């Protein structure tokens, strides 16, 4: 990229949004090159952004977008940086727009059950504020304590308790977005607090999962709920996979409306939990597989539903692991999903990155896929941390998020860059198997990493992908918004691969 153009752009940005909001020191830029996802640290230098800007208002964001357009410099929006895909990695460098300074909670409307926040408000911050009034915003990803409300729109986030409340796309009422050409657009229906409406195109959906390629979301209005009276998790031990799998099938047909969701940890996952910390999952030895479900609601409805789900699990041959166990395991779901200390290599403890590939699968495909995935991970010699299958929809159909957990030692890439390529092939192979079984590449994080991104076209089909390219080019004529993602560069004649 043109070094002079960047220097000029930085100078102009300093004039427009204030010198203190334009950061050019190396130590500010380097950490913003990566996300939570496994990162090729041997290629770190290639992804270091040229500058970081920290806008304080939507107007500042507009200024940044205008300058970027003027000098044709890529911009990459970023807030939490806790995404499990490469959404915030500046593949073509450029300017990172760090939205954390826009941290105002603009309105909490308890009568119409909505809250309006700026882009730098985290789920935790909003949650703490709502709790004062006895309300919750029921968007619970594994990264609940580090994810941000507006960024969840761009990744089309997945929530643990989707069965009762839905995912981010079911919870967001409307939002404000700065388009790649600098216009501010309010994506809303009615006065901004109407969720279901048939007026015009459903533009909202366009931005869900856009990974910042279509604009920067600066404000969002979300639906809030009165905090449930009861939160009732239950964990069940099963002696073999078959009976647990049957229990899962029965749960999805139970028709219980207050179920937050259910899921299954397979044999490898349970083995992983047993590695060195019985405090987390102190399971009796004879259980090989764990099934869990959780109920959210009023005391009376949960009481009835609980009995029904207990019957289902008991009939399938499960053993209830106890109230205390269940509550601990459920409470620790956010913290324990990121355990770098459990990695093993040749019998040695090695800190590893937690990688979670996240295809969406249908119920009937689970047993077959499980075998193939474990085989592929073993073939490439990565540390297999097991599989999680968790219910994926608000309506109770047989659809699951398959969490393929793998431990990867990133520092290994430094000595042996080939290992990174091996990981990419491993990921690609896992995904190809999934696609053949009718799965989707990503239920939660967005398929923008190497190894997955090439398959987006295969999943969507040629015509649908072409439509995506057309939309991208229409909204972003200069290809400045997060270029390199989803191979959208093809719309501009680029090769689409970084």
């Amino acid at each position, binding site marked *: 990229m043109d070094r002079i153009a960047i220097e000029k752009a930085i100078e102009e940005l300093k004039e427009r949004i204030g010198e203190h909001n334009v950061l050019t020191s*190396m*130590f500010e830029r380097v*950490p913003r090159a990566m996300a*939570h996802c496994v990162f090729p640290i041997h290629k770190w230098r290639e992804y270091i952004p040229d500058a970081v800007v920290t806008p304080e208002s939507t107007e500042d964001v507009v200024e940044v977008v205008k300058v970027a357009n003027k000098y044709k410099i890529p911009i990459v929006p970023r807030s939490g940086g806790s995404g499990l895909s490469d959404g915030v990695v500046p593949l073509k460098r450029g300017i990172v727009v*760090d939205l954390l300074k826009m941290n105002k909670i603009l309105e909490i409307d308890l009568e119409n059950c909505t809250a309006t926040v700026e882009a730098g408000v985290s789920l935790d911050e909003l949650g703490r504020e709502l709790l004062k009034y006895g309300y919750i915003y029921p968007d619970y990803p594994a990264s609940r304590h*580090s994810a941000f409300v507006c960024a969840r729109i761009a990744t089309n986030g997945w929530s643990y308790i989707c069965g009762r409340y839905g995912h981010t796309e079911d919870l967001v009422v409307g939002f404000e977005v700065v388009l790649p050409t600098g216009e501010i657009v309010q994506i809303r229906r009615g006065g901004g607090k109407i969720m279901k409406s048939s007026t015009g195109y459903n533009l909202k959906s366009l931005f869900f999962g856009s990974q910042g390629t279509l604009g920067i979301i600066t404000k969002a209005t979300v639906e809030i709920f009165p905090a449930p009276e009861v939160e009732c998790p239950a964990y069940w031990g099963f002696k073999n996979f078959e009976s647990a799998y049957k229990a899962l099938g029965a749960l999805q047909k139970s028709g219980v409306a207050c179920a937050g969701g259910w899921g299954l940890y397979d044999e490898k996952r349970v083995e992983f939990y047993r590695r060195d910390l019985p405090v987390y999952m102190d399971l009796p030895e004879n259980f090989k597989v764990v099934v869990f479900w959780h109920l959210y609601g009023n005391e009376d409805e949960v009481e009835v539903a609980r009995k029904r789900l207990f019957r289902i699990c008991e009939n399938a041959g499960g053993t209830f692991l106890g109230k205390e166990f269940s509550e601990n395991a459920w409470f620790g779901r956010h913290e324990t999903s990121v355990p770098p200390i459990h990695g093993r290599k040749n019998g040695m403890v090695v*800190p590893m990155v937690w990688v979670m590939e996240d295809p969406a699968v249908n119920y009937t495909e689970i047993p077959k896929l499980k075998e193939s995935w474990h085989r592929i991970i073993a073939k490439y010699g990565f540390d297999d941390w097991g599989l999680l299958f968790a219910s994926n929809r608000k309506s109770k159909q047989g659809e699951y998020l398959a969490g393929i957990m793998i431990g990867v030692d990133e520092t290994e890439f*430094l000595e042996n860059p080939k290992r990174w390529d091996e990981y990419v092939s491993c990921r690609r192979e896992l995904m190809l198997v999934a696609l053949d079984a009718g799965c989707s590449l990503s239920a939660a994080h967005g398929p923008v990493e190497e190894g997955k991104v090439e398959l987006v076209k295969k999943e969507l089909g040629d015509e649908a992908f072409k439509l995506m390219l057309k939309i991208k080019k229409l909204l972003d004529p200069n290809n400045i918004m997060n270029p390199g993602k989803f191979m959208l560069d093809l719309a501009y004649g680029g090769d689409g691969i970084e």
Partner: protein
Amino acid sequence: MEVMGLNEVMLNRDHVKLCMECRCHLCREMCTQYIETRNSVNTAYGTYIIAFAYQLGLIEPTRELAEHFLYCTTCGLCKYRCTVSLKGAFYRKIMDVPKHVAEIRAFLNEKVGIPYKAGIILDNLRKFNNPQGTLKAFVNLENVKDPLNEKVSIIFYMGYSAYDRRNSKALEAAIDILKNSGVDFGILRKEPNSGDLALRLGDVGLFEIFKERNLEIFESTKAERIVTFSPHDFYTFKNDYKLKNVSHISVFLKELMDEGKIKVRKIGYRVIYKDPCYLGRHSGIFNEPRSIISSIAELEEFSANRYLALCCGGGSGHDVMGLEKKKINRVAKILANEAKERGVDTIAVACPSCTTMIESEGMRTKNITEIVREAMV
């Protein structure tokens, strides 16, 4: 403390690798400096990722970097939010962020020189024995013994609060209590600084000078015990001087109350207690101040308390160097707002830095010594 270069604080040491391979960002949410600056690099995660990138040659040590590392107040809340630390005490020991920040500061001071703001503090410490650069202590020491002239069993160590108008009032309250309870105590007229700030700001040499001077004096006075006013000095004496017979004033007052040397009456008001980082989280003293307060007033708790208590934002010299330029002190504001929402108009503190920071936001604070003196019968 051993000075360690970033090279050693780095790659081959467990904590950096653990943090790098985890990247959970859980430390961010409650980090004082993140709340102040809304910059995610000013967190424990940022510290470790910078250390890692340095090792890979991506980041050069610069003056700007040294200034950046002044942000941390070494409150240590991140240690109790860290995913790795959650796995148990063993990992909490590895992820000792405050210690690592001090080490990195020491390293950068050596490489690129001491940053301007820290330089002022360290200069003041060297010349005036206090970080504020004040010539004379504000505390009235009439009728108080000097341990260097008379033998006393307890040295009451004032620390740099004596050079601060607001905190010297709390100090005088403490002296009053000690006098009235008939304790055989004395206060050094020329008290060397504990060196706490010098150590946290990475000037290990200066710290060693102070340490030597203090130990010499303590030994020559043959006092049995040292009672400190500031939790920071308490922590430094206990952990960096390795002194055994040292306690914080709140613990000492509690003992006196238990022995019946101090008698207090109930005063009908409500206060909310804020745990000082260096007394609570770093030293594990939570109950003594609480039991003193609850025997006098009605005690309320912040929603984040004990190990997870918020920092006031005054650690690492921020109470001295920050206030002039900083327009808002967001953390103190959060604390003040929460207290107001609960209908409490006084925050009870046990640390002079908390007093300075929270009062700068217009909230009334009372040091635990002031509360006790008010209620003494």
